[in-house]
């Protein structure tokens, strides 16, 4: 088990190295500079002072070396924009994104599986067609557009839900208010993965239903309920787990938009700020952390998978 995890993490290091190289050279070779040095009124001397202060007068390759050296020691540098450690800035925001995505995953997986199973069982009937059609629509509607419409309807017209923000935290935390804040972002973010889960569950279920062992179970005289919900579903859900792993990067992509629409101050809105203000250390830091999140969540998915599917050798 431990060896497997270490092994996977080892592979991830290589992967992360490629990712950081791509990102670092991409952002550093582009025109423009950190916003601090890019104020319109700043004099050339002021600009120079800031550039030197930030060490941007050195060649890119040297800076990458330095960055990598620091990063390997766990130091992701200091944000240009706020002079705070990048780690702090990210961890200020990351919980919100995790909160949002975890809720979304829970919501999408539960709802998605239920709908997908219904669709598969009612194959070819009206319910199935409706679900199929809806999920393609779900895939096709731009989520930002839908988000705006939601705000327009539920916040502006009906005034049921707050248009944005994460709601009060700490002492002022209040569950009802919190749920009111999170419900629209979760639904909108779900639109980016829910249709996939529905479609995948459906096809997985259909695939399983056509398997020989389902015939065997029927031949043994099992009730149809047991056939579908004990035997078929159990098998059908195994591939769904891997799909969740695949969908995580997509979910994080969707989070950028969702967080922007709903003022959900997570990592998604931070990357926009970081990219816009050319906060190189912050961009790099977010890239590293996000990639790590993806890698780790895939690892978790694999571990879960190996627990659920006996065909995968149990991790000793």
């Amino acid at each position, binding site marked *: 088990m431990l060896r497997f995890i270490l092994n996977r993490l080892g592979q991830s290091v290589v992967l992360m190295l490629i990712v950081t190289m791509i990102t670092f050279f991409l952002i550093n070779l582009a025109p423009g500079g950190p916003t601090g040095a890019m104020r319109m009124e700043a004099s050339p001397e002021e600009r120079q002072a800031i550039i030197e202060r930030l060490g941007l007068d050195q060649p890119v390759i040297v800076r990458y070396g330095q960055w990598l050296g620091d990063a390997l020691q766990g130091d992701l540098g200091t944000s240009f924009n706020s002079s705070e450690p990048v780690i702090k800035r990210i961890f200020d925001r990351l919980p919100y994104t995790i909160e949002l995505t975890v809720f979304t995953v829970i919501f999408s997986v539960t709802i998605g599986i239920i709908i997908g199973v219904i669709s598969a069982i009612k194959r070819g009937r009206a319910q199935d067609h409706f679900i199929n059609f809806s999920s393609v629509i779900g895939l096709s509607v731009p989520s930002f557009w839908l988000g705006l419409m939601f705000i327009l309807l539920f916040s502006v017209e009906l005034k049921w839900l707050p248009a944005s923000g994460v709601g009060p935290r700490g002492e002022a935390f209040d569950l009802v208010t919190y749920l009111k804040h999170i419900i629209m972002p979760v639904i909108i973010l779900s639109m980016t993965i829910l249709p996939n889960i529905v479609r995948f569950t459906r096809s997985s279920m259909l695939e399983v239903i056509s398997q020989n062992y389902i015939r065997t179970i029927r031949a043994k005289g099992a009730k149809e309920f047991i056939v579908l919900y004990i035997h078929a579903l159990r098998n059908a859900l195994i591939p769904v787990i891997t799909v969740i792993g695949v969908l995580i*990067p997509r979910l994080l992509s969707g989070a950028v938009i969702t967080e922007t629409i709903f003022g959900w101050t997570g990592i998604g809105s931070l990357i926009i700020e970081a990219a816009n203000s050319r906060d190189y250390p912050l961009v790099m830091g977010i890239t590293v952390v996000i990639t790590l999140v993806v890698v780790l969540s895939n690892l978790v998915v694999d571990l879960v998978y190996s627990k659920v599917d006996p065909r995968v050798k149990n991790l000793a």
Partner: protein
Amino acid sequence: METPANIETAPEVEPVQQRKVTFWTSLHRNKIAMLAFWFLIVLHVIVFIGPLVWSYTPTEMTTTGPLANWSWAHPFGTDDLGRDVFARMLHGGRITLLVGLAAMLFSLLIGTIIGACAGFFGKVVESILMRVTEAMMAIPNFFFVLVALTVLGTSPMMVIIVIACSGWMEVARVVYGETLKWKEYEFVEAANAAGAKPLRILIKYIIPQVLPSIIVSGTLMIAWAILTESAISYLGLGIQPPTPTWGNMLQNAQQYLWTAPVLGILPGAAITLIVLAYNFLGDGLRDALDPKFVKK
């Protein structure tokens, strides 16, 4: 007794019905996919011919003034700067579709080459290419697009390249998987046994088998590229005005959601419809190719 020759020349009782139902007949049976197909044809014709016919240009400020309502002269009214929305929809559609098509073609090209080479040549080539693919997949593509466009600028060409560069991995994986699968087929080995060179095997034996999957990926890619373009436009990072695209029209319109909702509804609906059509077509093609297709 019959001679061997006339036994075999005598018509066989049957040619085994091996999925003789081809691609097109199967697609034809899928009503939604066909509807989507024709809708797309019509839409593309309108969008590519329309601007040649329609009298207004998308950037000129008409004398009608801003935010005018529906009229014969301006079937969709005018926008905040008094420009003809119909003309903008036509031109915007053209750009949007071009971006979608070009990004799709470009990412298919990258994805196919990388996937096919990794799958076919194996070994070091495979390791390197698939590691890069995995690395790219681990970056949520929107993060990549966002950072890349922020720093590289937003000319249409750049938008196309960046979208393509962020989306080829899925294609590469599909092609890689398919290549691995087909590589094991005996007809490929037979070609090898006949002494065919690797490149010939790849191009004549493997790529043609993978092509249907590529086509399916292609249709779904367009849908994805259009959505991505409009999403980055929503964040103000897409193709910039004055060039209209449905995405930046929508972005511009969100300020007017309350006062002139039609400005937002039109491009939003257009994007949704076209993405929907491409998705339905892609699904149809996929089902036509393999009724038991499970992935995605």
